[in-house]
């Protein structure tokens, strides 16, 4: 029998708080509230607390001197945690160009799934996606909310080069490549918006808990937004999200 959350060390510089593995907005909300609480309580330890789907990791800048005691302290904190303060979320409108020049695998998905390209675009841009966390690569958003009809396996042979901004589908996930890199997702479009800016602190404007909505743009609009980004005058379309 396992009891959740499980609180245990990850080496000498980390403490994990694992909840029962699941992808749900309720759990995300709980994690985000607990994250803020712990970050505040452990301010003087200068820790960074990150979340994934069902875990928090408290990352210490140096090796923890007494791991056993620190785990006990975190357990006590988690038990008494006051996590009722609601977190504020933004909804971001994200432009995606689904035209052929970018949508390298749209035809393939359309043929195999016997769904028209227009319907795939509609299904992809209809949901309000939830940002669970940023991981894997700088600025890579883990999104929940892909329509089941669009789930599609990753490429067996990953591409050596996927362009920055490429919008892809991999199994039950969809996402945007924040920089040009190798990758195995099926590419259906491209978004010119900057997801990661190394010259800004914080480097990401979008945070875990925020919502995304895709909307289709043509090549001309893609080029126009790209120019705004290049000129440093781009602004996200976002507003407070009232769920």
């Amino acid at each position: 029998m396992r009891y959740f959350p499980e609180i245990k060390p990850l080496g000498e510089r980390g403490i994990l708080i694992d909840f029962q593995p699941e992808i749900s907005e309720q759990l995300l909300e709980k994690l985000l509230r607990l994250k803020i609480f712990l970050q505040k309580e452990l301010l003087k330890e200068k820790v960074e607390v990150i979340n994934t789907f069902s875990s928090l990791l408290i990352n210490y800048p140096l090796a923890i001197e007494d791991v056993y005691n620190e785990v006990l302290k975190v357990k006590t904190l988690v038990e008494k945690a006051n996590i009722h303060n609601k977190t504020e979320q933004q909804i971001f409108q994200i432009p995606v160009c689904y035209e052929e020049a970018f949508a390298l695998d749209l035809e393939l998905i359309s043929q195999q799934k016997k769904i028209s390209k227009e319907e795939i675009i509609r299904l992809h841009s209809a949901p309000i996606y939830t940002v669970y966390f940023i991981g894997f690569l700088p600025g890579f958003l883990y999104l929940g909310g892909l329509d089941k009809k669009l789930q599609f396996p990753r490429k067996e042979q990953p591409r050596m080069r996927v362009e920055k901004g490429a919008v892809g589908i991999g199994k039950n996930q969809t996402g945007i490549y924040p920089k040009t890199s190798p990758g195995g997702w099926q590419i259906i479009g491209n978004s010119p918006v900057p997801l990661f800016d190394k010259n800004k602190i914080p480097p990401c404007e979008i945070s875990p808990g925020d919502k995304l909505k895709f909307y289709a743009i043509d090549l001309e609009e893609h080029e126009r937004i790209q120019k705004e980004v290049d000129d440093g005058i781009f602004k996200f379309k976002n507003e407070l999200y009232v769920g």
Partner: protein
Amino acid sequence: MSAEVEVLHPGLFTSIQDGGRYGFMKYGVPVSGAMDSFSSKMANLLLNNPEDASVMEVTQMGPKVRFSAATAIAITGAVLSPEVNGKPVENNHVIDINPGDVLQFGRRILGCRAYLAVRGGFQTPKVLKSRSFYEGITSVYRLVKGMKLPYDAEASGELVNSYAAIKQGEHLSAVKVEVLPGPEFDRLISSEAEKLKNSEFTLSKYSDRMGFQLSEVFPNNLEAILTSPVLPGTVQLTPSGKLIVLMRDGQTTGGYPRILQLTERGINIIAQRIPGEKFQFGIKNEVLS
């Protein structure tokens, strides 16, 4: 006064590293920093630098560089036959440098990564609060020929004791790589756990600052996990039986079971191994919660 180290030859893979880009993991940014944090600290301490000042991380085949102004340096970690103006110099000592002096490295004797500290630390640009090179964050991710690395020629020189010396780090000759059980360690059946403790493993050629892949195949039936946090030193086991030790530039999250977690010392030990070398994991026996 501005002083520079000019790169005459970059070596196999040389970069500038400090204590790491800490606090940006939540944006998916790896921590980076010196692979062997112990040796880089020691190099800095020899020069009375802050222990996380920027140092040059030299991998197996060292660079050839020229100093524009007088300073003091110290080299720690791997023994790569360093020479100043053609004369051998020793690791773990303070070395006085005159304007125009040329430092180069020769044959590898021991270890994989040497650390060159300069008085006051290298002053390459900080990006996201750190000078550690990382592709896509800093403008370059490795030294290139002709590059000039600034340092501060005026930095607290009188504080350096030219006779200061330390012993070679014992982790350079450690037999076992120190580990703790990872979050999914208990999913291994007992024979697998035993095998993990008792087998020899080999560092494959697919080993870089992001991670070290091991050559041996470790058959297993562990299921993938929901994408979860990982840290430098996390050992992942893939369904095809590959063991991957994530290193300082490793990704921040992963979906493979995390069967072991190297201690800080374990990371420093394995950072000094070269591809082809064999080692064993040594589980640090501590009862934790």
